[in-house]
């Protein structure tokens, strides 16, 4: 039993989500422990991104629970018949502020410089004075290798640089958990490495991360725990060694087969 393990930082149980008649998530169970790097892999349409977006309520989930530090995200259950009520805008925003997210398409604020992008949440959400927020922003921009780009606007930066600013913007908020949604998929191949390097650096520093990725090599090297999703369910989960070397389901074997060339080159 897992009684010896501490309570997970993120605990998802039976998470369900439909778009119209189409059920995307059919009951996802997932734990992420403090300091862990968990990777979600699977074919497109398997629900990885939708699940990730439920965690900070960019999508509403209809069934199940998602707990962060034991507190349910987005809803409270009350009354005799366990009625599910959405939390207030202020509560939801406070919960979101504890979860960072990095997007596939960067989504920087185009009317703000790199530094202002990082500072916005620090001043308006964390309530930090401008000077302190600026100091934190500069620290993180330097950490992602963009100290000399802090006054640049997003359109003056390459895709890889924009994504690194987006990572700095998310980490600067000191989130409990960082979500990465296919963050290298929109990048030119030669820019992928610089973003992965930043993520690896964060993983080493003990940041708790949950990532959706098609970078199998990176997942294999960096993740502590890998979750293979198929058809809206967790099909298999385990250590990278278990998933990549002993895939127990035909679907996983088939899925990994596509990455065969890449994966066999390291082993």
């Amino acid at each position: 039993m897992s009684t010896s393990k501490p309570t997970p930082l993120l605990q998802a149980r039976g998470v369900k989500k439909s778009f119209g008649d189409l059920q995307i998530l059919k009951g996802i169970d997932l734990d992420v422990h403090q300091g862990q790097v968990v990777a979600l892999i699977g074919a497109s349409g398997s629900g990885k991104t939708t699940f990730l977006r439920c965690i900070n309520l960019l999508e509403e989930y209809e069934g199940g629970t998602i707990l962060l530090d034991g507190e349910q995200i987005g809803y409270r259950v009350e009354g005799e018949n366990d009625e599910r009520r959405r939390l207030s805008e202020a509560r939801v925003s406070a919960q979101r502020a504890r979860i960072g997210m990095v997007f596939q398409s960067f989504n920087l604020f185009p009317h703000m410089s790199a530094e202002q992008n990082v500072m916005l949440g620090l001043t308006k959400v964390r309530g930090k004075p401008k000077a302190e927020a600026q100091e934190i922003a500069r620290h993180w921009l330097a950490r992602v290798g963009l100290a000399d780009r802090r006054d640049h606007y997003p359109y003056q930066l390459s895709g890889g640089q924009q994504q690194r600013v987006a990572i700095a913007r998310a980490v600067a908020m000191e989130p409990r958990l960082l979500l990465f949604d296919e963050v290298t998929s929109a990048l030119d191949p030669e820019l992928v490495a610089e973003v992965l390097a930043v993520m690896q650096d964060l993983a080493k520093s003990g940041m708790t991360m949950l990532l959706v990725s098609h970078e199998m090599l990176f997942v294999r090297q960096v993740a502590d725990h890998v979750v293979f999703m198929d058809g809206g369910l967790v099909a298999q989960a385990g250590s990278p060694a278990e998933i990549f070397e002993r895939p127990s389901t035909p679907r996983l074997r088939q899925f990994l087969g596509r990455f065969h060339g890449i994966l066999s080159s390291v082993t």
Partner: protein
Amino acid sequence: MALERGTFLYEIWVARWSLLSGLGITVSSAALTIVIATLLGMILGIGLTYGWRPLRWLIRLYVDVLRGIPVLVLILFAYYGLAMFKINVPPFWAGVIALAAFSTAHIAETIRGGIQSLPQGQTEAAKAIGLQFHQRLAYVIIPLATRRVLPPWMNTCAEIVKNTTLLSIIGVVEFLLSNQQAIARNYLVLQFYLLAAVVYLLINFTISQLGAMLERRYAHFRY
């Protein structure tokens, strides 16, 4: 050229105070309308985008009804219609109310379109860092929508300036009517109507130049 009685320049000189006062009325009624319609249009436009359903329907009804009625009818209604209910509004204000009511509907619709045309990504990023609705509006959505809304908004402003000529119908001596009054004295029909056309053109040229300047200022909002 001698300033003789009956020449165009002489007649302009004679009518100068009347013409300047007309120009003042045109500019002030247009400016007031633009300010009121922009403020109310912004509020209604945001309500139209994010309001709860009954509120959206109500605003939608207002916008569609107002846009479907000729401005002239609105102006006549504001002046004569309100008088029938024993609400006496001076012609200038009746005109401004009618023009503002009409332009508010246009600007509300423009702003709704501007907000809805924004890519979702920036809003989601703003949510993800924990900004609340009003903060997302103030720091992300409005600044980004402003850039998109600027060109159609400048068009509406130019329309407003032209629509002020309709106030002459209810006896507001704006620039067009002040020209017509001059023509009634001296019969220089072509000259004074040409003068009116050129002045309106100049006002709207100034507006479009201002707009171009603002657009250049926001050029770095590329997305």
